[in-house]
């Protein structure tokens, strides 16, 4: 359904922008219909940039993204594309204009995308969508953003994204600002929507959230994919040292950390080497030009030991 090929995004850094910093470096992945793919990485790993590239909020430096046979990389008119692909972001509070009622985000969708729709039938549609994600329209419509909780605002943004013929949703850290006691409900909504036919790119830094909801997992480190495949296989039979280190470091409520060292991120790996080279216990001169290799069916890892 959505396929990224050799996708890269470079930013100019240094004095006069002479150096290039690759936020996303030659990334390939594919997302099928009715699939939740979680994109897991630490801050600065490029996961948000990938989300932005898919939403075309920024253009790639090289490579391309194809959505249902449509190359969107250099697409001029994005309106039609946005009817099918929508995004939700981390901070639900800043997605609203505080001086308008929350209804306005729904009205703006109608004005922008469906101007021929009558106000009344649109209202019915909005009410239906809001009910479908477990909110009571009477409690939320007509309110100002500050009168609603973060969880309610975030759910309304999901509702807004669903008002169109949305087939693909980019969900970028959508629950990290919500309370622990309410965030799980948002995840459950995403899975229900998937069962109704939606595909989701679920961007997160929290492995347990990814494990809970996703079918496939992409492990990202400094802009490159370290491991990619079926979620169960990645978590239960991980092949890359970085994934293993992450899994070893997850704080669990009933098991203490083992004594293995957790290394802190260093500065950077030499050019051409695996991005994880400087932190990897197995790093040596063979860690050069490593591409994703097949571990088993639907499971790939970029490591010399595979």
């Amino acid at each position, binding site marked *: 359904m959505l396929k990224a090929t050799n996708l890269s995004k470079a930013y100019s850094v240094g004095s006069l922008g002479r150096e290039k910093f690759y936020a996303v470096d030659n990334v390939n992945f594919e997302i099928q219909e009715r699939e939740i793919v979680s994109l897991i*990485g*630490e*801050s*600065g*790993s490029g996961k948000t940039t990938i989300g932005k590239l898919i939403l075309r909020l920024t253009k790639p430096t090289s490579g391309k993204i194809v959505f249902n046979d449509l190359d969107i990389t250099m697409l001029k008119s994005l309106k039609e594309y946005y009817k099918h692909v929508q995004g939700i972001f981390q901070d639900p509070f800043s997605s609203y204009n505080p001086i308008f009622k929350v209804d306005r985000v729904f009205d703006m969708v109608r004005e922008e995308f469906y101007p021929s729709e009558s106000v009344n039938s649109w209202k019915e549609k909005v009410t239906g969508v809001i009910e479908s994600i477990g909110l009571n329209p009477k409690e939320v419509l007509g309110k100002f953003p500050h009168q609603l*909780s973060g*969880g309610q605002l975030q759910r309304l943004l999901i509702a807004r994204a669903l008002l169109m013929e949305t087939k693909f949703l980019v969900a970028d850290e959508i629950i990290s*600002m919500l*309370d*622990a*006691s*309410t*965030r*799980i*409900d948002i*995840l*459950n909504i995403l*899975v229900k929507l998937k069962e109704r036919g939606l595909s989701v790119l679920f961007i997160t*830094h929290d*492995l*347990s*959230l990814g*494990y*809970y*909801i996703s079918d496939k997992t992409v492990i990202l480190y400094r802009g490159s994919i370290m491991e990619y495949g079926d*979620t169960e296989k990645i*978590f239960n039979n991980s092949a890359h040292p970085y994934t293993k*280190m*992450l*899994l*070893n*470091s*997850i*704080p*669990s*409520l*009933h098991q*203490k*950390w083992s004594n293995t*060292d*957790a*290394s*802190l*991120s260093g*500065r950077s790996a030499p050019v051409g080497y695996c991005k994880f080279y400087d932190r990897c216990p197995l790093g040596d001169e063979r860690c050069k030009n490593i591409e994703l290799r097949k571990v088993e069916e639907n499971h790939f890892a970029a490591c010399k030991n595979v």
Partner: protein
Amino acid sequence: MLEVEGLKLYYKTLKGHVKAVDDVSFDVNDGELLGLAGESGCGKSTLGNGLILLKPPMNYFGGMVQLDHTQLPIDDFERMNDFRFSKLSIIPQYAMDALNPTRKIGVYIREVLQSRGIDPESIMDKLLERLKFVNLPERVLKMYPIELSGGMKQRMVMVMSTLLNPSLLIADEVTSALDVSSQKAVCLMIKGFKDAGIVKSLIFITHDISVLYQIADRIMIMYAGKVAEIGKTQQIASNPVHPYTKMLMFSLPEVGIRYAHGILSGIPGQPPQLLNPPTGCLFKERCPLRGKECDEEPPVVNVEEGHIAYCWKVTQNA
């Protein structure tokens, strides 16, 4: 050792007082790491900040704080200067942004020390030793903050916060921006400050109970500005008694739990407004066990040794 008794910290607003920390009592023993957990808005950061830097709009409304049997004048901004950094210190939530961008780090540390009336030369050896302790090279002192990564800046602030060997160190959400492997390293490093005897006791504030399970000796759970439950780490993890703690722990996904195998559920509803909060137990609106008595202030129940909960529905030795 820190003793806090009936502490009340309210924010003054035009509409009235927001009771961010309301009648909170607890203690932290020497050599102990107390984990402080709760959701956003439960008052955990207000409590941490209030102990060290109490300034408007936050106001002191009562209670007593004793550090090593000396009363802390936390409501007196000037007099607290005698205690800040030397007796108690904090690693703030946004430690990465706490350094002066226009000064080299070494120069900045020198200025900070001079402003405290301390001769920088007398402490240089200790500084270098501490840099080694957190895995930073000596040359960072000649660098500007912009040349360091976020994690390095955070460790630099850790060094500065603990340079005078304070008795109490407060770490406020220090790991929330890190990936799990860095989180583990930083958590163990902070615990190391206590184990190496650099600080005597630690308060580790986080929203993540599973992190506390790894490093804390005791855990305190807060809800809506009040203490819900305090107990030893093992007691909280294996025998939580307050309905809020129980529900919170059942709403956390862990690796090993998948949607397909069993759906977790959150706690319905949301925390109450702390501006004119309702009377009685503040969790009652969301609590499945709510009874008539919950409209009254909940009693403190001694569940077992070292384990207390503020709840009507909890019985002793539950």
